[in-house]
């Protein structure tokens, strides 16, 4: 069950033709011995998704040279993206409700660890690896100004570990495995954050560590209680047995522990205090990476537990989770947006905006209908794109201006027009202007609220997006109308600017061509609401 066991079984059993789609199950078994000789790598993609970055991380440490380590990390990241895209393609080809089940080391699911990939986590995997790749491309140039070059290789190792953890949480079908990968990603994330330029980075990382560990331990506790009730850790198995057990006090406490634990990692409103500091003082690229992936994966975990493990009848009809999450989501949407308006540092403002956007996603979850959940999941994707794009823009500003404070951005609209243009584009998407990705997710959330018969909620969603207008436009006004400081300013380096534009043009593209995002998200939503995975 442990990571080490996984690794060992992975390497030993690589030849054991261990890929089983449900239908092929029996035939595979028979052919297992025959196939022993030829290793069919394409069947082991789910394991490679995790093993590749995990093995590359120590390799980065051995390489020691910044450029080499970066090259390796870039390569592995891109490889992971290719794998996850392939997996998504395969899952979608299986049709509605299809899933790939991979048995680690060839052990059968309820006993062994299963990697189970359906429309939902294939989608999340693409986001994690995709964002990771794009941000990695921007990393070396931005990191130069924040970390001594001779320590870069450590950064890349931690980065790859973090990606491993996030991808692992997403891909696994085993509840305890989620905890293990969560801790891998968290520990490396703490290390990444502490590499920031100021001493505040370390205190922020410490604060995050304390809260994150409490969150992780609560999750562990919840999983333990579930195991106590059902005697299994496999998610598919859990949901079946839990439905038989029904609602009792242990299940309620388990749900409470899991929701509380994940909410800390997710930075849901009253548990968000670590996030603004961590995002503000971390190196710019770390923020771009974590903002788009860490909270998103936590959201995925919440969705997975609430819908796949507990199921809608148990979580909503009997345990009334929506009565807790709806108010918190609304508080996040309004409260965090209001705080964002008064921030003096733009990076911090965007961090607060993230807290607000998490509110939208949780709102979609709490609505628990198809449109709402689709909205939440689409927003997961869209927000990942726009926020990491915006934080990369911040990286440009930090590099050229040496600061992301609002007053230092005066006149930057004229001095760095391309960078500023990217900011405006991302901002519009954040507001939810039509033809941008942000509009698509808001549209589904509003529809979800109306379908649930809660029109004041629909109005609240839209009103709160007006607050986004306020905090984005505050920046635009300063950057556009204030007299710039004197002195020459070079345009931002292309190696950061191009990734930023790729992400932000992505928000434009996915605002127009929504068949991929909405199609996958609504398929996932139907899957989740339809009961067991």
């Amino acid at each position, binding site marked *: 069950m442990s990571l080490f066991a996984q690794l060992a079984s992975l390497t030993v059993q690589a030849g054991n033709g261990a890929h089983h789609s449900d239908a092929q199950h029996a035939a595979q078994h028979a052919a297992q011995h025959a196939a022993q000789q030829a290793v069919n790598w394409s069947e082991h993609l789910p394991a490679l998704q995790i093993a590749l970055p995990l093995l590359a991380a120590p390799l980065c440490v051995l390489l020691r040279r910044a450029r080499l380590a970066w090259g390796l990390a870039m390569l592995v990241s891109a490889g992971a993206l290719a794998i996850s895209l392939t997996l998504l393609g395969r899952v979608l080809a299986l049709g509605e409700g299809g899933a790939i089940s991979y048995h680690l080391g060839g052990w059968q699911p309820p006993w062994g660890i299963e990697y189970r990939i359906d429309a939902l986590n294939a989608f999340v995997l693409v986001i994690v690896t995709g964002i990771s790749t794009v941000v990695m491309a921007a990393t070396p140039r931005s990191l130069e100004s924040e970390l001594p070059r001779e320590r870069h290789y450590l950064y890349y190792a931690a980065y790859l570990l973090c990606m491993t953890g996030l991808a692992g949480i997403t891909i696994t079908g085993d509840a305890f495995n989620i905890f293990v990968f969560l801790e891998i990603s968290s520990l490396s994330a703490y290390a990444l954050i502490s590499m920031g330029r100021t001493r505040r980075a370390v205190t922020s990382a410490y604060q995050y560590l304390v809260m994150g560990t409490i969150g992780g331990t609560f999750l562990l506790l919840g999983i333990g209680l579930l195991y106590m009730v059902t005697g299994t850790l496999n998610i598919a198995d859990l949901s079946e047995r839990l439905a038989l057990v029904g609602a009792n006090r242990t299940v309620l406490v388990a749900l409470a522990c899991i929701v509380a634990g994940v909410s800390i990692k997710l930075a849901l409103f009253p548990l968000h205090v670590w996030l603004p500091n961590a995002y503000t003082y971390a190196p710019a690229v770390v923020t771009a990476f974590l903002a788009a992936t860490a909270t998103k994966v936590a959201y995925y975990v919440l969705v997975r537990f609430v819908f796949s493990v507990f199921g809608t009848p148990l979580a909503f009809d009997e345990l009334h989770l929506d009565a807790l999450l709806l108010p918190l989501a609304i508080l996040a949407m309004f409260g965090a947006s209001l705080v964002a308006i008064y921030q003096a540092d733009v990076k911090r403002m965007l961090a607060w905006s993230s807290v607000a956007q998490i509110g939208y996603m949780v709102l979609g979850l709490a609505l628990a209908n198809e449109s709402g959940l689709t909205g939440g999941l689409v927003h997961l994707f869209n927000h990942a794109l726009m926020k990491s794009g915006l934080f990369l823009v911040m990286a440009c500003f930090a590099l050229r201006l040496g600061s992301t404070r609002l007053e230092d951005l005066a006149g930057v609209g004229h001095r760095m027009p391309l960078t500023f243009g990217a900011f405006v584009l991302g901002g519009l998407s954040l507001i939810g202007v039509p033809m941008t990705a942000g509009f698509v997710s808001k*549209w589904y959330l509003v*529809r979800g609220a109306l379908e649930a018969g809660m029109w004041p909620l*629909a109005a609240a969603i*839209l009103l709160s997006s007006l607050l986004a*207008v306020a905090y984005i436009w505050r920046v635009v006004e300063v950057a556009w*109308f204030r007299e710039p400081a004197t002195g020459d300013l070079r345009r931002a380096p292309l190696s950061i600017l191009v990734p930023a534009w790729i992400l932000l043009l992505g928000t434009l593209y996915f605002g127009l061509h*929504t068949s991929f995002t909405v199609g996958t998200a609504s398929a996932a939503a139907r899957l989740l609401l339809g009961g067991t995975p």
Partner: protein
Amino acid sequence: MSTCPILGPFLSEGPGPALFLAILWPLAGALLVGLASRLPNLRDTLSFLTALSLFAFVVTIILPAGRGSGDVSHDILEVLPGLTLRLRLEPLGLLFALVASGLWIITSLYAVGYMRGHGEKHQTRFAICFALAIAGALGVAFAGNVFTLFVFYEAITISTYPLVTHAGTEQARRSGRLYLGILMGTSVAFLLLALAWTWHLAGTTEFTPGGILAGKASPAVLTALLALYAFGTGKAALMPFHRWLPAAMVAPTPVSALLHAVAVVKAGVFTVVKVIVYIFGLDLMHEIGGDQWLAWVAAFTMLSAACVALSKDNLKARLAYSTISQLAYIVFGAALATDHAVLGSALHIAMHAFGKITLFFCAGAILVATHKSKVSELAGLGRRMPFTFGAFTLGAFSIIGLPPLGGSWSKWYLALGTMDVGDAGDAGGSGRPLMLGVLLLSSLLAVGYLMPVIVTAFFGQAEEDKQHSGHGSHGNQSEGGLREAPLLCVLPPVVSALGCLALFYYADELVTILKGALLP
């Protein structure tokens, strides 16, 4: 259907794709203008040629298509399942497109004269954003469903923001904040909600003759929905969401002229008219009582804005409040929801456009020639600038509604509309004399705020003249001598004023086109 290569289908698929091409046209123009930014003469020629060719395109390709009987539509893209960016030609939109593209020609000429005469900076950005706003206006005109309309509506808001804040001063920044705050605020908070709600209730947002909402929800819900549409369309400047329009007057005059008298504000009232006619349907309006309360809200806006206009000394501010008042006529007519009233309000879109753009052109010409912007400073200028003030007089008479100028027709039909509202809806049949009274009172107020300008300009005595009278004439600034603005600033108002005159005689053409929309 869902995707469309840019040019391929335009040649083969009939007139439908031409609608899309008409929207892309100004965008292409904007691109060319941007490329020519270093050569001001080429840039301004390109800008003018784009406007000219666009109008020619609309007249030669789209107008005949609109007269034909077939359904002219084009799907650009299916953004979300069932939510398509769709263009569809119908008479109201055709009229709006003709007006917007036609007046753009004169405005682009005027803009050259004004911007150079006034020595404005960032002229390329100005021209680009202008073209983008026109593309947005055409998109609104041709929108085939509320979603498409909303998309282009927001596009207009964003593309006009740099125009409003063009000066880059503290005042411009504050006005820009108000502008964006109100327009985007109302549209996101109300209009988008109305859009989603409509979708939720009817399962579609297509503009359909006779409306799509009848019987879909209780009168209370539909009333709320109507309120969301009416107030969510901030560009229609219905009180209390009108403050952005006076604020936008900080923009250079060509912007105030074309955008804040024609394209932007008309996009707003056009939205309201279109929603009432094609989403609610006239019958439903009577059923839910929208013909009462919305008409009164409009009537209130009409009168109170006119009163504010009386008190403004700044000419552009006075014109802005006059615009608010006149826009309310259009909402008023649509809200009454009778054939005559809707016809009147649709006509008023065109009539007011010509009248008000003339007035703004004149205000800009005065500013360029004399750097004066207050009504009280205009004394005697009428004799110095006879062409400018001649045009101003014609425009003002058209706004007031005096024959033989275009504005008289729209007011005539609106008045008719108030009288037959009882026949269509209530049991009575006496019409609504009180509403007719409001219309007349508002016209009187228009006389009150426009005539003083003319009277002061022609018959007042200028300060300089008073000084000169003792000393006799000297220099080239002799008494009674002409001191007009540059030709490019004077010609446009004269042309548009003549347009007001022409519209009186050719109104019949428009009425025929529009009747097709109202009597399906």
